[in-house]
């Protein structure tokens, strides 16, 4: 009865939608909402789901996508600058936490082998929960996010040796289970060949990202098929995950690597935008399954033991990481925030526990207990973060100094002053002027050849259709000061102005217009200023013509300057009539009629060769009279 796909989808989606919306409303964050949804529909409450383990295997792909997206934001240079955090803080965290937990377990009478295994398994934190929670709090980009991410990354790396080391701690009989993690196809090969295979796989990801994926994307971008682009993006992630599984590496780690390789490609933004919805949905699903696996039966049987273990685990992990971060030079506030965020058990623990049971390291009842502890500690994380924030707010009120959200935001790309949509004949000139004067700009363009050319000159250009609001948001529209709309397509440009005006009211929007009519449309849609694309060029040619006809350069220039001012005034004068009456619309469509008005106005207002202060004809008479009187005369 649980088998039918639609029924299952209905249950998961409905539970997610209802509880997450409610949780958000209550200020609890989406992660907790999903976990509650899972607990509600899980086998221990309403029992509407089938075996959550099945869904979990699928949902874990959400974590893979999450890591891929994070990889996209981490350029190799940034990763290199994080090496100290990753190996220093991360390595110390895994070892110190494992030993601390092992020590505590031995006090409870576990043999040292089992205790150490439990310590290693529980030292892992939950990438999904930590990053999602930090993201929601806006902390993922700052120093908190960086430190937390460094630790998580090392934990991912540590999985590989763990699979090799854990079996050595066996005390019980080894049960060879077919679904043990070593679904790795190369597990039976000798060690050196395995190592070689791992290296080859990593090499394939890096090389493939560099030399294969980009041409493929370029080809697909030229075909202008959105869904194929999305499909290709997913294909890459799935392919990499698969490859990593074959050689026994963590798929999430592989996806992260693939993301880093593609972080500097021109398709980064488009990839991010296309894959983002999958991440959200699958991660949600993942959290639901975590909620559903919480064994409430066990909790009800031994509530005190379980609560004690969860609190003990979280306190221990907090203390160890806090101490290590402090030793590493972090402030109290930073260390505490990172430690609170990472104080839970992770999803890897589920996999590792199954594996250790199979390897005879940990007994089934103990594994069940630890699974419950990890699941509950994961569910507790959003709550502890909320409590932690409350404490901080309380402290800040007494002593307002440090802030949890550190403003040192370094991702310069996500903080442009200006977004330039369309970097063709028009956008380039405007963009170059702005960049030459030190303004940071992010450029979006849909023409792949243009992007190629510009990237060769080291410009930061991204492939993408700027009329998509999500892409604009990715490009930093929420923080930018200005949007310059310079795309060729008239209708799309007008649409972009309208949408951007609605979504980002703070932006100054400057728009390139095709002609007078288009310019009025753009203004009506909310552009702050427009520029008719051919006007300045035509005027400039007029100046050249006047000079060739014998005008002195200054006179020709002035003539054009006056003409420009006069024309802009006429443009403003005719604007209120625009679109008011059907008749005007009809008349205006008739270009010659508009031209009629313009020419009439030109004749009326632009008298050729009119006198000005430089050659006041009226003055000559005065001078003559003055000369006759022989008085002092001429003003300077």
């Amino acid at each position, binding site marked *: 009865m649980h088998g039918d796909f639609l029924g299952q989808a209905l249950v998961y989606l409905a539970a997610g939608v209802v509880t997450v919306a409610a949780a958000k409303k209550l200020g609890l964050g989406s992660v907790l909402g999903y976990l509650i949804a899972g607990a509600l529909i899980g086998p221990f409450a309403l029992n509407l789901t089938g075996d959550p383990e099945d869904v979990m295997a699928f949902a874990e792909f959400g974590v893979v996508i999450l890591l891929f997206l994070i990889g996209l934001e981490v350029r190799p240079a940034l990763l290199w600058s994080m090496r100290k955090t990753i190996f220093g803080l991360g390595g110390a965290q895994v070892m110190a936490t494992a030993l601390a937990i092992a020590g505590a377990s031995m006090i409870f009478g576990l043999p040292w082998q089992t205790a150490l295994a439990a310590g290693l398994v529980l030292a892992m934190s939950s990438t999904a929960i930590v990053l999602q929670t930090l993201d929601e709090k806006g902390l993922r980009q700052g120093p908190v996010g960086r430190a937390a991410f460094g630790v998580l990354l090392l934990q991912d790396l540590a999985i590989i040796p763990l699979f090799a080391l854990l079996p050595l701690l066996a005390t019980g009989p080894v049960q060879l289970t077919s679904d043990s993690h070593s679904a790795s196809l190369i597990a039976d090969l000798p060690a050196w060949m395995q190592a070689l295979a791992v290296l080859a796989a990593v090499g394939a990801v890096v090389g493939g990202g560099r030399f294969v994926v980009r041409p493929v994307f370029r080809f697909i971008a030229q075909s202008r098929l959105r869904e194929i682009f999305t499909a290709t993006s997913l294909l890459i992630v799935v392919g990499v995950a698969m490859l990593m599984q074959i050689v026994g590496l963590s798929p999430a780690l592989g996806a992260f690597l693939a993301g880093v390789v593609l972080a500097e490609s021109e398709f980064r933004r488009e990839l991010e935008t296309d894959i983002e919805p999958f991440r959200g949905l699958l991660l949600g699903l993942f959290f639901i399954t975590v909620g559903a696996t919480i064994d409430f039966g066990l909790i009800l049987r031994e509530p005190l033991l379980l609560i004690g273990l969860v609190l003990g685990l979280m306190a221990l992990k907090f203390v160890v990481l806090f101490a290590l971060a402090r030793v590493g030079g972090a402030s109290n506030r930073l260390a505490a925030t990172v430690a609170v965020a990472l104080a839970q058990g992770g999803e890897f623990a589920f996999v590792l526990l199954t594996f250790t049971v199979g390897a005879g390291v940990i007994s089934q009842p103990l594994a069940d207990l630890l699974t419950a502890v990890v699941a509950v500690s994961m569910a507790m994380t959003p709550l502890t973060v909320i409590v932690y924030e409350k404490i901080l707010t309380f402290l800040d009120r007494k002593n307002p100094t440090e802030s949890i959200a550190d403003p040192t935001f370094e991702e310069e790309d996500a903080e442009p002053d200006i977004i330039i949509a369309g970097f063709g004949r028009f956008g380039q000139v405007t963009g170059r002027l702005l960049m030459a004067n030190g303004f940071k700009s992010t450029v979006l363009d849909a023409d792949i050849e243009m992007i190629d050319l510009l990237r060769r000159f080291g410009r930061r250009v991204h492939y993408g259709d700027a009329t998509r609001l999500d892409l604009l948001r990715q490009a930093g529209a929420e923080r930018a000061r200005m949007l310059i709309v310079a795309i060729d397509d008239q209708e799309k440009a007008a649409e972009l102005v309208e949408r951007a005006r609605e979504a980002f009211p703070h932006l100054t929007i400057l728009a390139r217009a095709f002609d007078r009519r288009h310019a009025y449309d753009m203004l009506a849609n909310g552009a702050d200023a427009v520029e008719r694309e051919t006007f300045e060029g035509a005027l400039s040619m007029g100046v050249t013509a006047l000079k060739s006809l014998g005008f002195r350069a200054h006179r020709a220039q002035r003539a054009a*300057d006056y003409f420009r001012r006069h024309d802009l005034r006429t443009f403003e004068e005719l604007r209120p009539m625009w679109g008011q009456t059907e008749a005007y619309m009809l008349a205006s469509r008739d270009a010659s009629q508009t031209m009629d008005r313009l020419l009439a106005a030109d004749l009326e207002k632009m008298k050729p060769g009119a006198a*000005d202060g430089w050659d006041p004809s009226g003055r000559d008479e005065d001078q003559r009279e003055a000369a006759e009187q022989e008085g002092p005369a001429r003003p300077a």
Partner: protein
Amino acid sequence: MEPERREPSVLVVFAHPALERSRANAVLADAAKGAAGVRFHDLYEIYPDFVIDVEAEQEKLLAHQVIALQFPFYWYSTPALMKEWLDLVWLHGFAYGKGGDRLKGKQLFVACTTGGPAQAYHQRGYNRFTMEEFLRPLEQTAALCGMIWENPYVVHGARLKDDAHIRGEADRYRARLEGLAAAARETV
């Protein structure tokens, strides 16, 4: 006493081609902008292309009793755009000459900053002439137009003085403008 809402009686015509690099003039300009009864008119901001709207400028002149010219002293004269503005706006038949009495009876007030210290503007200083002498062309402009020449406000050594000093100058300048504005309101 409720503050009266009236049209400003002082027009500060301001010219500085690189205000972003200015020290004294920027502070003085802010003081002028904040002064009661004063309208601030920034030429380089409105006419970056030097294409001056003569009619609009003349209307502005007519609408105010006191015309104040605020500028940094460049080569013993006004910055280029202010000269352009004088050349093109203060026309024969409007400001002077036959039928040119439209500015008659108004006051002309010059406020300028110099790079050199006060002692340089002296017969034995390196500039060899006093500020009074250097400002004669503007004084005569006022005379030809039948305007009253107000005692100029000059800040010397603008680059040499500290912030506190410049703030003091700005306060005095603002007081001077407000005094002119108040007096003008009574005469009108």
